[in-house]
Each structure stands twice: as C-alpha cells, then as structure tokens.
C-alpha cells in the first residue's frame, strides 16, 4: 500500500487545512496515509475515534467488535443509526467510515477478541485504540500491546466521567499493569451504568487526537492521564504518571517482575467468552 512520498493533488485540497499546521506538513500527511490504526470496540468511544481518524486520512483502519447495533446505543454511538439497528457494529461503522472517506482501507473484524486471537488480529496495526467497555479486555489489550511493542491509546467513559491514557508509548511508557498489577476483583454484577453520549464523544475524539499526534510525531510522550468529569469544575484534570515499572508483571524487567498474569484476568464473568485455560504466554515474546 506504500504510495511513496507523493500525495495526489486532490489530497492537498482535502487535507490542506491540517497540512499547513506547523510541525505537520506534507510529511505528516504521508505518515497518516501510511499508518494503520485498529479500533477495538465500535461503541461510544470507537465511533467518534473512527470518525476523526478517517477524516484526517489515516490510511488503514481496523474495526473490531462482535456486537450488533441496538436502539439503546443510538444516544451515543453516532456512526450507527436507526437503519443499521440489528446490523453488526463493525459493518455499520465501516459503512459510515467509508462514506466519510472512500479512499482509506477499512478492515472489518467481527469476532470476539480473546487471548487466542489477540496477537494475530492486532499485530498488523501501528497503534491500538482501546474503546472497549470491560476490564478483562482492557487487560488483554494492554498485555498484547506490550508483547507486540505497540502504543495503546486507552479511553474509558462512565456516567459523567471519562479517562484517557496512552500506554506503552516509547521505551519508557508504562502499561496498565504498571498502574494496576491485577484487575479489580469483579463484584459479580455487570449491570449497565448510565452514560452521557457527549462524554464518550469527548474521550473518543481525544483518542483519535492522541493517535494522530503519535503518528505525526507531535506527541510529547510524557506519561499522564487525563480525567474528565462533565459536571466538575474544572472539568479536566491531568495527572502525572511515572514511567514503566521494573516490577510490572507485564512490561517489567525479567527477574524483577512481581505478580503474575493469569488467563482469567481476560475473562468476563458476566457473559464474556468461556475461559481458555491454556495460557498464551503473552507476557514476553
């Protein structure tokens, strides 16, 4: 898919408003064109993220989801609509993404992500966006991103709150397990919490922005987490995080690691895929 270092004249017109930005230029646009991003979850976070990645001209987008569109999704999952209710979210989102930008490649991956397929499915992409809605998949994505050496742009949203963090970026970038070596003990319930659509929009949008910054070399790579609270004053708070921890069970130094990665970290106890107890050895490859 490499088109060399030339951009069609049409693309100058289309992407000109971002190409004239300082530090962006033709080289930035070419980097976007050659880049691939996989968006895991085509829901409240994935929809706005896909939208702005496609509009900016990221050359290849992967969309992973195995759910179908439901009416209750429409208050926030803005790539889906009344006509696509019942369709797979991947197909519905891909249709919308192709409409925004017919010139990019869109991969549709309609299978549940598990420790069995994560490496295979994610390895083709430069950057992984965590737009999922559950903790086990978040750990699976973090561990896989570490194993594959790829940055993971992680977003989360619930009620009036949102969070954004880039994991495993650069040689010092921490991972999810550096912060929380083991997943929270599951409380047994998986009832749906409330969520305001615009909150997922803000976070998903910022995920696209982080990915674009990483691709174009504009990311400053300081480890931090952004915390958003729609009713808060101030609404945004940035938290300084440390670097990668030598003791991290996922990305730490061999011999210094504390704790283990368990296969059941990846299993949702309320409707997720059945556990496969054969460990995948994702920790180091």
């Amino acid at each position, binding site marked *: 898919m490499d088109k060399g270092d030339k951009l069609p004249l049409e693309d100058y017109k289309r992407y000109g408003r971002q190409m004239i930005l300082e530090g962006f230029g033709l080289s930035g646009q070419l980097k976007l064109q050659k880049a691939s991003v996989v968006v895991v979850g085509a829901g409240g976070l994935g929809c706005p993220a896909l939208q702005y990645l496609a509009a900016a001209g990221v050359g290849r987008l992967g969309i992973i989801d195995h759910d179908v569109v439901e009416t209750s999704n429409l208050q926030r999952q803005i790539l889906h609509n009344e006509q696509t209710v019942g369709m797979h979210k991947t197909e519905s989102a891909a249709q919308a993404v192709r409409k925004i930008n017919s010139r990019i490649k869109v991969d549709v991956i309609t299978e549940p992500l598990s420790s069995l397929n994560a490496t295979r499915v994610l390895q083709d992409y430069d950057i992984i966006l965590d737009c999922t809605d559950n903790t086990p998949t978040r750990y699976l994505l973090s561990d896989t991103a570490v194993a594959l050496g790829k940055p993971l742009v992680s977003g989360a949203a619930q009620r009036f709150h949102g969070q954004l963090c880039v994991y495993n970026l650069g040689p010092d970038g921490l991972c999810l397990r550096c912060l929380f070596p083991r997943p929270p003990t599951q409380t047994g319930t998986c009832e749906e919490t409330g969520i305001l659509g615009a909150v997922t929009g803000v976070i998903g949008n910022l995920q696209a922005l982080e990915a674009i910054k990483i691709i174009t070399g504009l990311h400053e790579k300081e480890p931090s987490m952004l915390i958003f609270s729609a009713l808060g004053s101030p609404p945004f*708070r940035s938290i300084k995080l440390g670097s990668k*921890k030598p003791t991290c069970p996922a990305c730490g130094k061999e011999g210094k690691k504390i704790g283990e990665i368990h296969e059941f970290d990846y299993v949702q106890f309320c409707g997720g895929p059945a556990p496969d107890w054969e460990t995948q050895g994702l920790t180091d490859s």
Partner: protein
Amino acid sequence: MSTPPTLTINVEFGGGLELLFANQRKYQLSIPVLIPPDTTATPPSGSAPPPILSKPADITFLIRYLKENHLKERPELFVEGETVRPGILVLVNDTDWELEGEGDYALKEGDEIVFISTLHGG
C-alpha cells in the same frame, strides 16, 4: 489539656467513588499531625489518655480514617486490607502516589489527595 496539632488536607473523590461517600465529592479534613505507630483511625479525643504519638500521619492512615469516618457503603469497593482496592488511582497534588511513596507518604498541610476509580465503560 492541649489538643494535639492537626493539619488540614483536602480530599476529593472521582470516577464514581463519591457515590460511596454520601455523593460528596470534596472533603476538607483536619487530621492529627502525628499518630501512634499502631494507631486506630479514631481521632485522639480529649478525655482518653493521650496515645504515644510518634509517626507522621500518612496516606495509609488517611485511607483507614476515611473508611471509619466517611465511607457510607460497600467498603469492599474502596479498601482492600490496608490500602485501596485495585483499580483506584491515588493522587498526591495531581501526581500518582507511586511517585510519592504510596501509603507511606507523610501528609502535609494543604495537601490535595484525590481518589479516582478507574472506569471500564466505553
């Protein structure tokens, strides 16, 4: 009898944790400067014999203090043993507590300690 010296700190809850604390996001607390090495979280009262105060109040103390004085429901969603449960981020003046010594961080006048539950939804 003299009151033991106290320090004033600001505590904030986010990401939904405030729901466990009477849905109040911000607390201003007066806590003792020094605590006994094996202190309970009960603040020293004037009538009891004064305990031996030998250790600065740290975040481990604060967690216990919050649990015993302000936590209204489902303590298992806030504490686990002597620390916060996995998935809760603790910030000392907007910096991850990891960088500040975690539970052993000695509280200082005016510190802002934030407890944020990490979210999983999307």
